[in-house]
């Protein structure tokens, strides 16, 4: 009990644990633990044969956080910024440090815009998005979707119902709005024509 000085006894002694668990205590000495101490100055062990790395060519104006004094010598080149989402990303990097919520909220907003832009663009390609296949939801039928949940005390079941609504909801709303505007537009054009005939 914490109300007295002694530590509560353990159910098994160290000797019993050593017998039962393979490798028990082999890293008991902190000197055997590779991240002790956490910082250990030894630049010779990393394999680097440079003081400062040669610079990777910058093939487009690479976005850079304003907290960096210079563009890092190496960087990823996946998915250059494009469209409205790209504009938002450039603003987030050029204006706000990572200490500012605005930086992250603009980037998250850009991600949603990117998703919409990309979905619309895919319609014009030979490989449009297939929302069913892309969610992998067919595995519900091949990998025990019901049995994995039924009768289990799983804390995540409450939002398993909520998540698809929140994910698919905006898409359904956009499709509904486009259909509504389309029908209205068609009636606006076709209606007078029919009345005039």
């Amino acid at each position: 009990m914490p109300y007295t000085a002694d530590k509560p006894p353990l159910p098994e002694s160290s000797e019993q644990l050593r017998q039962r668990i393979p490798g028990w205590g082999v890293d008991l000495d902190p000197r055997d633990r590779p991240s002790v101490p956490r910082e250990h100055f030894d630049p010779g062990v990393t394999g680097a044969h440079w003081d400062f790395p040669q610079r990777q060519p910058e093939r487009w104006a690479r976005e850079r956080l304003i907290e960096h004094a210079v563009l890092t010598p190496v960087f990823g080149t996946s998915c250059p910024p494009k469209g409205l989402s790209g504009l938002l990303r450039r603003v987030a990097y050029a204006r706000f440090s990572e200490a500012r919520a605005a930086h992250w909220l603009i980037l998250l907003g850009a991600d949603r815009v990117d998703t919409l832009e990309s979905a619309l663009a895919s319609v014009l390609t030979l490989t449009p998005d297939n929302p069913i296949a892309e969610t992998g939801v067919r595995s519900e039928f091949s990998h025990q979707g019901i049995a994995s949940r039924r009768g289990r005390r799983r804390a995540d079941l409450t939002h398993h119902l909520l998540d698809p609504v929140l994910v698919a909801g905006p898409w359904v709303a956009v499709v509904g709005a486009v259909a509504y505007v389309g029908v209205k537009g068609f009636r606006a054009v076709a209606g007078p024509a029919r009345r005039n005939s």
Partner: protein
Amino acid sequence: MRAMVYRGPYRMRVEEKDIPAIEHPNDAIVRVSLAAICGSDLHLYHGMMPDTRVGMTFGHEFIGVVEQVGPSVQNLTPGDRVMVPFNIYCGSCFFCARGLYSNCHNVNPNATAVGGIYGYSHTCGGYDGGQAEFVRVPFADVGLTIIPDWMDDEDAVMLTDALATGYFGAQLGDIAEGDVVVVFGAGPVGLFAARSAWLMGAGRVIVIDHLEYRLHKAREFAHAETYNFTAYDDIVVQMKKITDHLGADVAIDAVGAEADGNLLQHVTSATLKLQGGSPVALNWAIDAVRKGGTISVMGAYGPMFSAVKFGDAMNKGLTLRMNQCPVKRQWPRLFEHIRNGHLKPSDIVTHRIPLEHIAEGYHIFSAKLDGCIKPLIVANAA
């Protein structure tokens, strides 16, 4: 080449992409033989990580064969069978020189708070990842390591993140002989952290989760006592009861941003993205550990703020330790543990999924179907 491509939250597909090119003299191109989906990949998949762009290829746990090397690469040649730490790092900056490889300052122009990670959004540098047939690996002389002949592929791929991170998490707990260690989360990192706690001399290892099949694995693989938090009104009170009301000496958060157990926290973080993550497990850790105890945070959180109970942490005099794991620093010792039979990391692998079916793999892992603990992705070019 064929590669996984992100299409938006909860959506991905496999597409043809160009084989990556050498962009820096110390780059290598690796033909991927085996990759894995990490629990933290689910944060990207669920749209939680800012600057995750449509078209990006995920995957920071992978091994393969060197296909091509840049002109300054000295230590590798095409054909070498290699493992790749999830950290991208230069080996020469202020932080790398001190062993903080996960905090490298020369590889990520998009952030200073985090280093470079393969396939983990532009917030982590904008590098495509290894859930593909080929991947660009910067600083090949620094990160890449030839896989020992005696090590099999599945053990090797576990070393690229999950095992190294779990082992590192136990080290950050500063475990002393006889310590009571409680691990929140029985996913891959939690299982490895629990197993590693014994190596460091823990006297008792307790694992908490809500998935019975994972708790079963924790008992079998990690020799741990287990508790399903859904069976108790308040798991913190239960932790106090089983530790004679003292609390654990060390707590390890191996859950991170998508912790369940509090619907409000989940909705405000995972669903509405108003927090960097749902800190349910971290808050339980703060309240379940004893005064003066240590918390090791291995769970990944987004860069936004999260509703963490710092008041309790301060009043209890806790030590909070955390970092992304500097993977390669762990490898020599972990190689010994595997070779000596103290660890068999591939024992936690449950699913082996062809790259072409990766969307199903993500859904199975995300929805915790079919007893999934650790899914591997088998690349077509393997």
